[in-house]
């Protein structure tokens, strides 16, 4: 008789459980479908931006692109190279602006040898990260990139001021060697200039250089001073030596070139302009940057890479000297990593890759330099190059960027203004030197002193 009836909300639970399986999964399924495909599933490879010098040297672009593609292939890290302005001041300006930007600044940047002190707060100390590479590099070069004990950049390119000349014209006018002194250069330039003009080449000039109010003028002028024993503006003992007779004489000599062996427009010339004139066959001599190896045992080498008429008839030699011999300004750049880079590891990776490649390239070039056609066509000059290894080392004109640190820009600008005012005839040299000295004291607070012999 007993007929117990059973029913449970468990029935509900079972259905709900089924529902929960479907209903619970459904949003997850849908959400995964929806959000799963909203962005590319493949992560974007890291892109490192590289602010490199050489933008104004378009021939270098394809080579660099190849190199960077190789890096990307090897590491998977993309490199976006950023162009830089022509002049080093503009380069500094851009570097500073970009480094100060919160976003979009360069990760790796080429820093002119004179700027590490200026950019110190924005750069990473690479001493430990690139310890292996540092072993292979020239210690003197490394020192140029040190500041407060930190190695702010690794030398990547080395440039030294050199004199280029027309081998054909020298030969034509009976000269066996390129000039060793400024006097020789003046004579040879004047003679060839006159000869060429006689031939009808009315715009032909003996010597073109960089007279525009830019850092190139500093490099030219410091070479003049070095040849005359006029010191290097601020000496290594942090004394201001620029207001000295030798320096003043060297400026006056240069002033004398204008309109004589150099075009009046040389006061507006930068590297590009002097090269343009020389390359089109408008000058017998020209001041130019020559490349050098960064390796410990690197040889001086010419790096005239332009495929122009002048290439086959161009010779290179050291900057002419004076009583104390000539000296070429040390230029070039090092690779630095931004303190603000979000990809520091990748940036250091790129730096190491470039340095290693450069070392390897230098080593290959050092061993093959004798076979280079450019050198063969200018035997004497090549000879001079080959034998100038020690002299190049001994006779580098080093700008006082290390001594002045962050103030170097102001120092250089003051110096350029002073020299340029003398060249334009705006000021006489002693006056300009005195004013400059005063300005530098104000800028640096350094004492005044004579040029040091060893610098």
């Amino acid at each position, binding site marked *: 008789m007993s007929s117990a009836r059973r*029913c449970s909300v468990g029935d*509900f639970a079972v*259905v709900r459980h089924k529902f929960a399986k479907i209903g619970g999964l459904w949003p997850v399924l849908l959400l995964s479908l929806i959000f799963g495909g*909203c962005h590319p599933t493949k992560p974007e490879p890291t892109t490192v931006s590289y602010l490199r010098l050489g933008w*104004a040297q378009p021939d270098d*672009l394809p080579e660099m692109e190849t190199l960077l593609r190789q890096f990307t292939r090897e590491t998977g890290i993309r490199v976006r190279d950023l162009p830089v*302005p022509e002049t080093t001041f503009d380069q500094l300006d*851009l570097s500073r602006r970009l480094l100060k930007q919160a976003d*979009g600044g360069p990760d790796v940047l080429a820093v002119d040898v004179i700027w590490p002190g200026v950019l110190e707060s924005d750069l990473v100390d690479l001493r430990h990260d690139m310890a292996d590479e540092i072993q292979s590099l020239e210690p003197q070069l490394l020192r140029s990139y040190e500041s407060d004990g930190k190695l702010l950049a690794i030398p990547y390119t080395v440039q030294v001021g050199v004199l280029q000349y027309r081998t054909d014209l020298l030969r034509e006018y009976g000269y066996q060697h390129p000039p060793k002194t400024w006097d020789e250069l003046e004579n040879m330039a004047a003679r060839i200039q006159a000869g060429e003009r006689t031939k009808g080449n009315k715009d032909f000039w003996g010597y073109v250089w960089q007279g525009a109010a830019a850092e190139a003028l500093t490099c030219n002028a410091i070479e003049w001073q070095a040849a005359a024993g006029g010191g290097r503006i601020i000496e290594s003992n942090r004394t201001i030596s620029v207001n000295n007779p030798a320096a003043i004489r060297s400026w006056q000599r240069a002033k004398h070139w204008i309109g004589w062996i150099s*075009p009046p427009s040389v006061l507006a010339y930068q590297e590009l302009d002097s090269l343009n004139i020389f390359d089109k066959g408008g000058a017998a001599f020209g001041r130019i940057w020559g490349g050098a190896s960064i390796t410990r045992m690197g040889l001086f080498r010419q790096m005239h890479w332009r495929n122009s008429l002048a290439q086959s008839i161009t010779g290179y030699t050291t900057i002419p000297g004076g009583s104390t011999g000539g000296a070429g300004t040390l230029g070039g750049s090092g690779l630095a990593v931004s303190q603000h880079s979000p990809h520091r590891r990748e940036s250091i990776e790129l730096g190491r890759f470039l340095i290693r490649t450069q070392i390897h390239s230098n080593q290959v070039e050092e061993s093959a330099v004798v076979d280079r056609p450019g050198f063969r066509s200018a035997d004497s000059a090549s000879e001079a190059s080959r034998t100038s290894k020690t002299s190049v080392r001994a006779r580098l004109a080093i700008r006082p960027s290390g001594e002045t640190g962050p103030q170097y820009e102001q120092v250089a600008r003051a110096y350029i203004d002073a020299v340029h005012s003398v060249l334009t005839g705006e000021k006489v040299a002693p006056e300009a030197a005195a004013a400059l000295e005063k300005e530098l004291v104000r800028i640096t607070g350094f004492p005044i002193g004579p040029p040091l012999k060893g610098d």
Partner: protein
Amino acid sequence: MISQINQLKIGPRLMVSFAAIVWLMLVGNVLLVWQFFLVSQQSDRVSAFARELAAVSLLQTDILSLDARLDLLAKSEDLDALGREARNLRSILSADGESVRDALVHLPSDAPRDIGVLPTVEAVKITLPPQLDAVIALAVAADWDAVRLRLANEKAPLEASTSDLVRNVQRQVSDELAHSVVQHERLKRRILLIVPSTALVMLLASTLLGLAITRSISDPLRLLVQGSTALARGDFDQRIQLFGNDELAHLGSVFNETTTKLRELYRQKQSSEAELRQMLDLTPQYLGVLGADGTPIYANRASLDYLGMGLDEWLQRKQIGEEIHPDDLERVVSGLNRALSTGSTVEIEERVRKGDGSFRWFLSRCNPVRDENGKMTRLYLASTDIHDRKSAEERLQLENVALREEIDRASMFEEIVGTSKPLKAVLSQIAKVAPTDSTVLITGETGTGKEVIARALHKRSRKSGRAFISVNCAAFAPTLISSELFGHEKGAFTGATQRRLGRFELADGGTIFLDEVGELPPDTQVALLRVLQEREFERVGGTQSIRVDVRIIAATNRDLDAAVAGGSFRSDLFYRLQVFPIEIPPLRERRDDIPLLVEYFIDRYARKAGKNIRQVNQETLELLQSYAWPGNIRELQNVIERSVILCETETFSIDESWLPQQPQTFLTAKPKSQVELSRRLEEQEKDMIEEALKASRGRVFGPTGAAAKLGIPRSTLESKIKSLKIDKNRFKTDPEG
């Protein structure tokens, strides 16, 4: 989660389910809106990149076109124009640079940016002015060669840089476009997936939830309904197992507790009921219980035995009523309705058919029982067999009718008073014939007390313990006398609405007195003859012969011999009746009895009137004795009654004027012959009756009627009017004449 929901009550459970559906709908809609948002975002991205591309392209175009213009100007060596163009280029460069910057700013924050764009623009902005300065400086120095060469060589890196920029941005835009197309396709597919799947899931979820909730409620409800139905049927062993914590589960446990208690109560009730039934079955009363609609619910053993059926058979009856006598049904129904409408107890007398088909009388007490709302729930019936009583009552009622008439007459002649010789002779005859069952024919003048004699015969007979039924055959219309004597079946004639027992049946076992037998119509005479011969008869309209044991005493003041001779009375009947004739002498022939009779009547009426009459005036007595008394003892009785009423003293006296003088004449004038006497008597009688009718304006009975005036019974007067052929209506129409 689910188990927690299980613990919820129904309301919250519905709320949770509803919220779940709403949540799913919201999710679906949010996803859709999100997709549309993505589409819009994608379009914005593409637009932003397109703007960037446009800005960058414009920058490049402007730089290159102005550069080309500078070239032209350098060739024409127009320093002023060159200066203007250089300034122009500078301002355009600044504007273009800002455009690019603006386009970059408006790129979506998550959009992949070409990290080279801004630096390149910056580089261009920083580079170009000094370069232009350099160009202008060369031009000022009139070194147009240097100007041209610089412009020519400057262009390459500038072109390379801006081309690089444009290329990169283009690549980015095309990447973005490609990505956008893919995204659009993906979003389209997704929307196409979301819309139906949302609808499907909504539908599925709603259906499942709806089903689940419905089941979670309807299943327990169904069980509760089933359980309750079973409970209502009396299955107290019902158990419902409901799990959970909701109201239904609670209801289930309440149900189970209730059934347990009910089961216990039911068992107690069953036990009590069994005892009660046993007791009820043992009671001689007939008990029954009906539902509010009259459906049978219970009947005790006595009732069922009477009805001759089992309880089940009785319970299958839709309504009771089949057993009730059709004649009583209407009354019973109205009684029941009264009980139902008023709620009061009603007693109904009814005939109920027994199992064998016969009917018996019952007194049924109907007691309606109402619930607290006043609604009738039960009707208790308690019936008592009153058949014997009812039959007796019925007989008694009829007997009462006869008795009442009898009493009226008995009031006249309840006792035979007298010591005269002629009376003694009659009394002697009575004494002889009374113990026998012989038929007696009593003759005598009107008012001589023929019925008193008949009563005396009955009283002294063996049937004295049973009914004495007196029938005045002259009092009934010829058409009704048969029915009166023999009874009739229902519907035997117009007005016969019920079966009626005749006087013969009522007199069964007793005596029937047929007064004025000479007035019987011929057909009734035949029927009476049959009763006399065979002691059986049939009711009018009936076919069944009824046997009776009745002693017949007939009486007449007519001359039956003459009637037989005249053919108005059957001779065979006459002879049957005249087995033992008794003739009662008129009062004038027993004057000796008058003083006794006077005393007797004075005593009787004085007592009745509350008067004290101690003596009778001698003159009065003499006057009464001298009077002829044509109305015999009845006339004497009337005169005395009237006198007693009028009598103011203790001495009884009458007014002489009350006694007509004619009797004197009548007494003194001698008739010439017996025939002459009869004729004269008839004439005299006719005159007196006509006189009385005239006075009463044709009215026969009642206090002012002719019968009262003449001091004779109505029946006698009617008989005489008939026999003397007096037209009584004549006096009605003409009361004056």
